[in-house]
């Protein structure tokens, strides 16, 4: 998918089915949602969906209007890298061979990963940070046998947003 990465933050009513509607707006036009993170906000009746999609800015403007049309959508904000804080968490499952153990310990030192699980032949590392940090960690560890990963996808808050 061409275009820049767009992070869209959507406040929605916390009700069943809302996620389907939001996802439907993208899917219907053949656009892939690359990551999506959703959870309650301080108000239990309101959830925040943070989603990442690659598209050009004309598309994002169009999508924003279509999302705002949904009855359950309260507010849609597009978050740029410059004006927001973006973070992601990842769990990385690695197979442990003797020469790899050493590298993994080095990764923990270098990148501040946490070792959250270890058994005879595999371990799970946890890492959090901005997108570049996560990708760097992954690139570093790939040669050493990553078995599987689970990423949250980005969450983000505008630097000014909560403070109206």
């Amino acid at each position: 998918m061409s275009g820049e990465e767009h992070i869209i933050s959507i406040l929605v009513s916390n009700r069943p089915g809302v996620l389907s509607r939001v996802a439907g707006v993208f899917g219907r036009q053949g656009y892939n949602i690359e990551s999506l993170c959703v959870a309650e906000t301080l108000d239990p009746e309101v959830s925040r969906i943070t989603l990442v999609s690659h598209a050009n800015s004309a598309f994002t403007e169009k999508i924003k209007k279509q999302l705002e049309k949904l009855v359950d959508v309260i507010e849609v904000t597009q978050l740029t890298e410059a004006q927001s804080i973006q973070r992601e968490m990842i769990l990385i499952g690695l197979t442990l061979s003797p020469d790899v153990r050493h590298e993994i310990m080095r990764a923990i030192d270098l990148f501040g990963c946490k070792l959250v699980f270890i058994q005879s032949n595999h371990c799970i590392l946890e890492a959090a940070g901005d997108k570049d940090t996560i990708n760097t960690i992954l690139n570093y560890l790939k040669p050493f046998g990553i078995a599987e990963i689970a990423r949250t996808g980005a969450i983000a808050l505008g630097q000014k947003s909560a403070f109206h």
Partner: protein
Amino acid sequence: MKKNGAEILLQTLRDQEVDVIFGYPGANTLSIYDGLRQGPIRHYLMRHEQAAAHAADGYARATGKVGVCLATSGPGATNLVTGIATAYMDSSPVVALTGQVPTNFLGSDAFQETDIIGITLPITKHSFLINDVREMKSSLHEAFKLARCSRPGPVLVDLPRDILTATCSDDEERGLLKTKKVQNGNGNPSEQLQKIARALNQAERPVIIIGGGVKLSNACAEMGDLIEKGQIPFVNTMMGIGSIHDGNGFNLGFIGTHGFELSNRIVHQSDFILAVGTRFSDRSTSDVDEFAPLATVAQIDIDPTSIGKNIKTALPLVSDIHKALTQLLPLVEGKDRAEWLQRIRREKEQTEQRNCYNGCGEPGRLISTIQDAMPTSTTAVTDVGLNQIWAVRSWKARTPRALLTSGGMGTMGFSVPAAIGAKMGNPESEVVSFSGDGGFLMNVQELATISYYNIPIKMVVFNNGHLGMIRQIQDLFFENRLSSCDLGSHIDMIAIAKGFGIEAKRVAVTHPNEGIEQMAASNGPFLLEVLVDPENYVFPIIPPGRSNMEMIFGRSD
């Protein structure tokens, strides 16, 4: 005092001033039907749920009120889908009530279970699954409000059987989670209106395009005032027809693939377009790159997603149309654009010569004759295809709700059931339904509904033994390689009508007068079958994908 869900439902419908429902019962809606027995809401038992949805839609289009249809779960609900989609595409306020399996059976593939909310997600404005009887009343009120507010549309309410029988008392009733929508400021609308007015006043060759949104906003009078004050010629989209009396001197017809030659030519030459309540569908613009190449476009619509979606607009305004036109009127100046009006007059004369009976030939003449034979307040409902184009070009709409047509979805089989809905909405007015032999067959079972309730609608079926529009397109653009457009001429429509207990007469399109007189004079339902030659096409027509100016006027073009 405790009431059950079905009772609360019916009471809420009464509170919403619903007087008719179109529906079809089933196992999961029986408690509603039990309550419907004592009235006062009148339930019309249609003979297919699709027809119930079209009837609710026709009712809404004819009256401006919310139309209501009711179907059971499973196949009943899925049969509503085409009707809901039809209402969605033309922004028609409809509430569709569907039965559902009990809540503890949801997701178990129970008998007649279907995820109708999931299925209709893309074709409803919103939907509700009531899983708590205490939210029944507030959900229904919200459904009606959503159906009619802003840009109207269909809303579905899914009613599990156990919720309909569950009870609650008045004080247990719960409000819904209030969706705290953040109102996006429209910038400064009055400033934008000033800009639009300025550009309009300075334009030398302005045209107004009236879309369906003007009548939805009840802004037809304001639009008329604007046209009068500014002395500005206007065209309609298919959905805008009727917003202004057809006889208005500034009316130039309707634009698009099947529009009038005059309308398309004038838009092409304009230097300023004020587009109100239109979404610029591909049917009205044809090739967008070639659409109105000389014009600056101002677009007013209540739906932000319609603004600038298909046609670039230099002067967009998101606003309720009634409000916008009221504020725009004092800013518009009455200009004497003699040269422009003279050019238009010349074009009008030339195009009228080229297109007798508006390019519809004998069928066009017949439709005019029928209109003259019927009272002036008659509502016309069209189906889809050649019959639709003949009707929208030939029937002179004098009021906003005089001509009903499925423009956005182009649903065949719409006409007869929508005519039933229109008649129930305005029982004092006559209703004429136009169909082709193809579309007529798609909801032919509604002849049973019509005779059962003795609904005196007049049905005109143009029988050319074909899917006429498909045949025309295959003839003109597929080098006459006809494929599956022949429906056969072996069906005896008169026998069908009589079998359903309906008076009927067959005429040839060239000699219809006796049949028309009989139809106009009849007191009950009437079917007029009009035999038409299958090569009776409609011209001009625009080849698929081409521009509004690349009109074809005959087979030889």
